[in-house]
């Protein structure tokens, strides 16, 4: 290989890198342009902030899911776990399962927002940890364990709340869902901060390296001295933590924790991660991609609703665009071969 070849190679790699992150981003930009042309008010700050707030719930879970999928795992239980953590948060916030129906409760009975938040994330992380242990100790594939979790957590949630919602939180808790800092919705800020943190962890820490290694080749990782099982458990703890955090924000936003919350979220969340370029076979992917993937789904849904497209047609369009976005990304990458 000649020196010229080497330099060329290096240039090639940089272009690939750029395109790898730009593929979904280009697609996102195109969507925004199309929707703006269709209806200019689409890019009103109000609407854009709406979108950021809307994607923040599934986006938070998608951050955790990125860790899981990077290890070649999957977590189907996130939607149910979100409902479960939300219910736990509600019980803690209100000091019981009794439903105070007044929407302006001062919440004196309960333990306040901080305890609720703590309860949600701790329960989420613990539930994730239990699933992680089932995966590593019982050697049951993640798909199966978390599919079981999907029904178990839903059953637990319904049992706690007896099917109904628990509603009415105090203003300090609701702020996390509905508040603004300047013009920016609080949930969007929470999502941004969490995404930044996850990016740093995955990109710049020893732990992040280990996650990629385990996903890239678990056997080689073990023979390189990584504690593969611990790392696997940890990613399910992380996704559970984020499900808990998302549950808290969602409950705060709706002023209610519902037993039916989060149904089908697993597919939205996994879509966001995969559209963002993370490989379901592990080892390849990034937080930035996931954020773009979540944004793409959010923009698509909002934009179609914005144009009052019939819900039947929406389903069809969203499904096709999902496939096309990933196909476009693949095609771009294949243009610039490694």
């Amino acid at each position, binding site marked *: 290989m000649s020196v010229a070849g080497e330099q060329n190679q290096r240039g090639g790699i940089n272009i690939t890198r750029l395109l790898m992150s730009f593929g979904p981003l280009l697609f996102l930009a195109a969507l925004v342009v199309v929707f703006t042309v269709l209806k200019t008010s689409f890019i009103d700050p109000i609407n854009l902030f709406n979108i950021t707030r*809307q994607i923040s719930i599934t986006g938070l879970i998608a951050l955790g899911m990125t860790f899981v999928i990077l290890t070649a795992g999957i977590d189907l239980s996130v939607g149910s776990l979100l409902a479960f953590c939300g219910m736990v948060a509600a019980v803690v916030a209100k000091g019981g399962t009794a439903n105070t129906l007044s929407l302006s409760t001062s919440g004196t009975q309960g333990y306040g927002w901080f305890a609720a938040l703590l309860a949600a994330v701790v329960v989420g992380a613990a539930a994730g940890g239990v699933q992680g242990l089932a995966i590593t100790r019982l050697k049951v594939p993640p798909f199966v364990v978390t599919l079981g979790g999907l029904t178990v957590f839903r059953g637990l949630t319904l049992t706690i709340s007896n099917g109904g*919602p628990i509603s009415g939180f105090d203003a300090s808790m609701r702020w996390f869902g509905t508040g603004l800092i300047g013009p920016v919705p609080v949930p969007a800020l929470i999502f941004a901060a969490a995404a930044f943190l996850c990016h740093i962890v995955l990109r710049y820490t020893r732990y992040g390296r280990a996650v990629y290694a385990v996903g890239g080749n678990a056997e080689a990782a073990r023979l390189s001295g990584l504690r593969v099982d611990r790392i696997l458990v940890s990613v399910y703890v992380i996704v559970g933590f984020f499900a808990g955090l998302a549950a808290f924000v969602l409950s705060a936003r709706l002023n209610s924790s519902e037993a*039916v919350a989060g149904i089908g979220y697993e597919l939205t969340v996994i879509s966001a991660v995969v559209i963002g370029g993370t490989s379901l076979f592990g080892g390849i992917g990034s937080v930035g991609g996931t954020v773009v993937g979540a944004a793409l789904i959010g923009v698509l849904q*909002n934009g179609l609703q914005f144009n009052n497209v019939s*819900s039947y047609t929406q389903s069809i369009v969203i499904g096709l665009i999902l496939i096309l976005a990933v196909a476009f990304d693949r095609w771009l990458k294949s243009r610039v071969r490694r």
Partner: protein
Amino acid sequence: AEDKLTILGSVPNLGFPFFVHMLNEIKAEAAAQGVNLTESDGQNSATKQTADIEAALVQKVNAIVISPLDVNALAPAIEEAVKAGVPVVTIDRRVDGVEGILAHVGADNVKGGEAEANAMVAAFPNGAKIFHLQGQPGAGPAIDRNKGVHNVLDPLKDKYQIVFEQTANFARAEALSVTEAGLAANGKPDAIVCANDDMALGAMEACAARNFTDVKIYGFDALPEALVAVRDGKLAGTVEQFPGEQSRTAVRIAVAYAKDKSEPKEKLVLLTPIVIGKDNLDKAERIGETK
């Protein structure tokens, strides 16, 4: 307890509070009548509810009280029960075309949708700009309630414009984000008509966030939470179909027949759905739960 009668009480989906209430009332009435109750949750699947009926027939229940998830899809299972000589009383959703159903107790969802739209029309005699949030596409009540709303509004198209019509799948979180999009795209509407209370409460949050507190929002089902919102003036109204009364009546009819073959006085008991507003809160079945 050997000779105690057993009845099957089956509802479409216990994930929704409406049906939890319905089953609770069935339970309470069964206890009051001194019969055993086998509970069944259709889990939003016609095949699941069919399977539950089949299992109950094997166990030789004495009567079936059922709110079918889908009147067409559950018809064969109900027919099977009738053929097996088990009396069937349907609640809320009426199954046509099966001979020999003991009785039906219900309040028509189409009528409910009409009542909801009429209440809205009455509140805006001069016409209104309307958002309409529909239920889960394909689900029976969603279809019927949608039909009812359109029955009233379609002839009045000129005055009552539905500028934004989307599904929010009966879910609060979706209603919130759909309404946000609607508000950003179309500005403030005069009224939002929703196919259930959960969506109404979601829409309410979206309006509150934009400080659009004078939008009249209508829900459906008269859940306690919605009743409180109606009381506080945050929802304009919600449709009451008396599910509890329906359930209790149905159980009474079924048990009476199972005990001594006494035919019901009426084969068709129809309760008229009403819209609960601030002024008639006391008519709401579950107002007692709002304390």
